[in-house]
């Protein structure tokens, strides 16, 4: 069953990523990304990271991607057109991406043995659930990075407000 789950949502993710690549209008790309994120959430869940799956759906695709879609609609960006520069980019981009893909795949396949198998759900330790585990780590050992991150978000908010303001 895990295999079926993996295959379905894996193919879904890849298909939507390719859709993202080949769509000309940005709004289509954004919506494809939302689907990718959703399928990734399922995969996270299958790997035992329930909290992250929830965070992915709520925060990432629910807030960040919505922000993207807002901005796309606000700016009313249109379709892309073929130009000469884009053709050069095609000739550089595809082979480059293919090269990186080959490289990574080669490594992962070589180390297939040591990587072993993934059990569905997984068991991290004697804790009952994943979120307890995460918060245990986050609020004790990594408390400082946690607080700093909140400051980071505050700074980002301020920055965004200042940058997007209309000039008076």
């Amino acid at each position: 069953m895990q295999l079926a789950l993996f295959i379905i949502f894996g193919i879904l993710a890849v298909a939507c990523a390719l859709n993202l690549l080949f769509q000309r209008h940005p709004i289509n790309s954004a919506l494809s990304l939302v689907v990718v994120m959703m399928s990734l959430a399922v995969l996270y869940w299958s790997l035992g990271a329930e909290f992250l799956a929830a965070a992915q759906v709520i925060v990432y695709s629910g807030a960040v991607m919505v922000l993207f879609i807002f901005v796309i609609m606000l700016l009313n960006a249109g379709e892309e057109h073929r130009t000469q520069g884009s053709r050069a980019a095609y000739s550089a981009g595809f082979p480059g991406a293919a090269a990186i893909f080959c490289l990574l795949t080669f490594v992962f396949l070589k180390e297939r043995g040591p990587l072993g198998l993934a059990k569905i759900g997984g068991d991290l330790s004697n804790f009952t659930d994943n979120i307890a585990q995460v918060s245990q780590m986050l609020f004790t050992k990594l408390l400082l990075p946690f607080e700093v991150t909140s400051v980071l978000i505050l700074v980002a908010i301020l920055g965004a407000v200042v940058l997007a303001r209309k000039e008076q």
Partner: protein
Amino acid sequence: MPANYLWLIPLLPFAGFLINGTLGRRLPRALVSAVALICTAIPAGLVAWLWYTMLSPGAPASIALDSGAWIAVPGFHADFSLSVDHLTLIMLGVVTGVGFLIHLYSVGYMAHEEGYWRFFAYLNLFMFFMSVLVLAANFLLLFVGWEGVGLASYLLIGFYFKKTSAANAGRKAFVVNRIGDFGFLLAMFLLIAHFGSLDFSTVFSTVGAHPEWLGVRFLTAICLLLVLGAAGKSAQIPLYVWLPDAMEGPTPVSALIHAATMVTAGIYMVARCHLLFDRSPAALAVVAIIGALTAIFAASIGMVQHDIKRVLAYSTVSQLGYMFLACGVGAYTAGIFHLLTHAFFKALLFLAAGSVIHALSGEQDMRNMGGLRKRISITFWTMSAGVFAIAGIPPFAGFFSKDEILFRAFNSPGPLGKALWIVGLITAGMTSFYMFRLWFKTFFGELRFEEATLESHGAAVHAHADTKLTMVAGHDDSHTHAVHKSPWIMLFPLVILAILSVIGGWVGIPGHSAIEGFLDPVFASAPIGGELPAVATSSALELTLAIASVLVALLGLYIAWLFYCRKPGTADALAQRFRSAYSLVSNKYWIDEIYHAFLVTPLLMFTRGIVELIFERGVVNGSARASGMTVRGFAWATRNQMSGNIRSYAGWLAAGAAVILAAMIFGRALWVHL
């Protein structure tokens, strides 16, 4: 005198050089002269004390002072060691005594020159190096002095560096000397190879311990190479060409360096190494032949020169040939004796010539002189003493020393000795002729010096703007254009040297020779062709030969009188009759031109064609340009990366990430293997 004071003799002039060289530009002239004179007078005093110490009864025959190691590696060591024996005493006496007198003279002669401080700084530097040369107890320290006097000579010949001919002359002197130094260096290398040391004591005692080393090849090689060095420094054939050109320097320089001291360094070195030379009859023969040939060759050129200093220059070359001849027949004492007397009268002649030039506000061409006998009388009398001395007329100094050399040459074994004697005799006649020619042309007859011709120029006594003969350079006009006498500071050394030229030879009167006994401890151990024959032969022969030389000298005097006093046009008429011979001799046998065509030009062609083309353009320029292009290339690559185009930045980002990825994945394997 305590041995430690020996170092003061060279170091005081060096201190004078440092003071005058660094601060002299800003010091007043009086202070510059005072520093220079003190730094020369004190060593002269120390030498006098040294003489006293070593002549007192019970004094050692030599004093040595070792001041610490210079090179100390396994297999070879050389120290800063000085030694003084009787030969050194004579050389030191000449160097410091005559040197001090010339410093005194220069205070007056150079009084109106710019660069006064520079002159005295260089002169003191020369004194330092020359003292090191004669005091050295090993070949290496001697070579330091050897090179150093060459440097000082270059600096002083090119003293008027703004004048092209002077600068060229300085360079020529240095380059030709360098060729000799090359021979000296090779000789030193051979000495290290065969004897393992450069100390005089070690080398000479090793040679003494091997009486079977007679005529062996390595000794002959060493001696011949040393002869090359001496030929360069003492202006013998084939390396004499620099000395006539060296007259571009101020006259005191010619007197000190190119008459009394530096050029005698070669003779000193041969005399010092007499133990080596005595073991190589071939080398001695070479020395003698070179000496004799140079003597007659230079004398023949000197007979037709018009510049008063040139005559004296060729005369110096010729007299140095005599000294070489003496060493070549094993008569080292005679050679040193002639060195001593020559120092007196040649320095005197040069200084007096300088006085004449000064009196005539820069005129050097003898064709424009004459009748100065009554105008500059002290100069006349002192110069006459010098002229009579060099001509070899008794009882003046030159007679005794020159005669001793001719006698020894006649006595040396084989037909070579007689041939050398004949050559020497003829040269003596020529010497007498050209010196009296100079005497008559300068001081007798009518005044050919035209005072009017100088009106338009500011007369520069001492700076000569262009080539040999006359003057033209700016000069403050404190002299009038008439013949004027020299100041006492210039005349005093002349008087002293004149007295020495008269009595200087009396230390070597045959039969009561003080100098021979004096130098016996140095030269006594000469098993071959040394001092022994002197005792063996008769004094009747010596008297006969002496009379022969005096007659020849008087013949030269008579002919000179005939040509230049009695019938003044005779010389020119002869020159016209034998025009080609005359032109050959007056152009110095075209030697300079031959050297230029066969040595200088091919060398320049080689340098410009090959070395310049390959090294200068190819290697040096090429590598400079290559490094420039490399930087440019990198800059071009980097510049293209910063295009301002966001897409290209994205591309570079991705590429960089890929590289890092690859490095991390595969670099690990490499690292593990390292």
